């Protein structure tokens, strides 16, 4: 049950064998959407790339990793309480923190936190319920807390290497999410796959999250500091 086996399973025919494809499909969907919107509308917005490009780019990378973990969890559906709580907390926290941070950097702490809460609480509760109400509550709380922390961190670092912080935060979050995938892998060796999402699931969520993020960053409400 080593990391080596996990890495090997990424090339196999089980659930883990589909994970690399999920990242690819998610990124392709998001970047195609950004490309289409850019040529139709966004390129006419003054300083779109310098103002929003960096944060949008990392938001899209974050969504691909979050959706990867969600798809992995949904494949097995039910987990023991301990694992389910860790799943709810990790998904809630990371999917609240990252959107909160990136939207907070362009729209301010309040709107970053609100956006992060919407994503974090939704995903945290949805995935945490794989072990029942405890995991769902854990996911809800983690989404709530992560979103506030994400929005707050971006504003606190506004004058202090915000972009570098964004890269570091994304990298740390990636390692945490991949750690969650490894945990799911180790916990499910004796379990049967219970659910199979096709690629429409990944395309739908990537499209929705990217579209809403773009709309929020560019046209959404923002605090006085960013007007």
């Amino acid at each position, binding site marked *: 049950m080593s990391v080596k086996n996990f890495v090997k399973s*990424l*090339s196999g025919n089980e659930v883990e*064998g589909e994970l*690399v*494809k999920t*990242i*690819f499909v998610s*990124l*392709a969907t998001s*970047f195609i959407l*950004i490309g289409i919107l850019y040529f139709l509308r966004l390129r006419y917005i003054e*300083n779109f*790339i*310098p103002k929003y*490009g*960096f944060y*949008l*780019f990392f938001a*899209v*990378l974050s969504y691909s990793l979050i959706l990867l973990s969600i798809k992995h969890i949904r494949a097995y559906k039910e987990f023991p309480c301990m694992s389910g709580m860790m799943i709810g907390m990790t998904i809630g926290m990371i999917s609240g923190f990252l959107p909160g941070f990136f939207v907070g950097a362009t729209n*301010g*702490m309040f709107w970053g936190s609100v956006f992060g809460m919407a994503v974090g609480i939704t995903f945290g509760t949805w995935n945490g319920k794989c072990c029942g109400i405890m995991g769902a509550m854990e996911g809800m709380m983690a989404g709530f807390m992560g979103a506030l922390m994400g929005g*707050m961190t971006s*504003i*606190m*670092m*506004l*004058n*202090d290497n915000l*972009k570098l912080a964004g890269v570091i935060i994304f990298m740390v979050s990636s390692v945490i999410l991949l750690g969650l995938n490894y945990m799911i892998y180790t916990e499910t060796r004796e379990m049967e796959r219970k659910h199979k999402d096709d690629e429409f699931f990944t395309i739908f969520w990537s499209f929705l999250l990217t579209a809403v993020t773009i709309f929020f960053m560019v046209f959404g409400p923002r*605090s*006085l*500091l*960013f*007007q």
Partner: protein
Amino acid sequence: MAKNVFYFFGILVLVAVAGFFILGAGAETSQKNSGTQNSGASGSGDFQKVTLSIKNYNYYPNTVTVKEGQPVRIYLDATVSGCLRSFTIKDFGIAKNLPTPNDYIEFTPDKKGTFRFACSMGMGYGTLIVE
């Protein structure tokens, strides 16, 4: 195996190409927040200049007195750092990021009273008295 190698390289190509266009284009333009310049500064010297610094982890001076109807320029000196450089006076609708000591906020206080100024997170704060 070959299928996943394809997807893996696909991910690398997607990230590299998108990163090149998005991050590369962003790097060509100055990253400075442009919302810090004053608007309508007269240059005649007919304004009240206030320079705030940091003492005991808060703005110093902590209480600032200005005259009503006369433009005020607020500077934050080099000792002010972090989120305290995002300066707000809610009652006058002011919220600006001042990245350097040369940036300033200019406004004309149009009402008398005592108002609170603070950083964007409320961690540093003080009092503005308009007489």
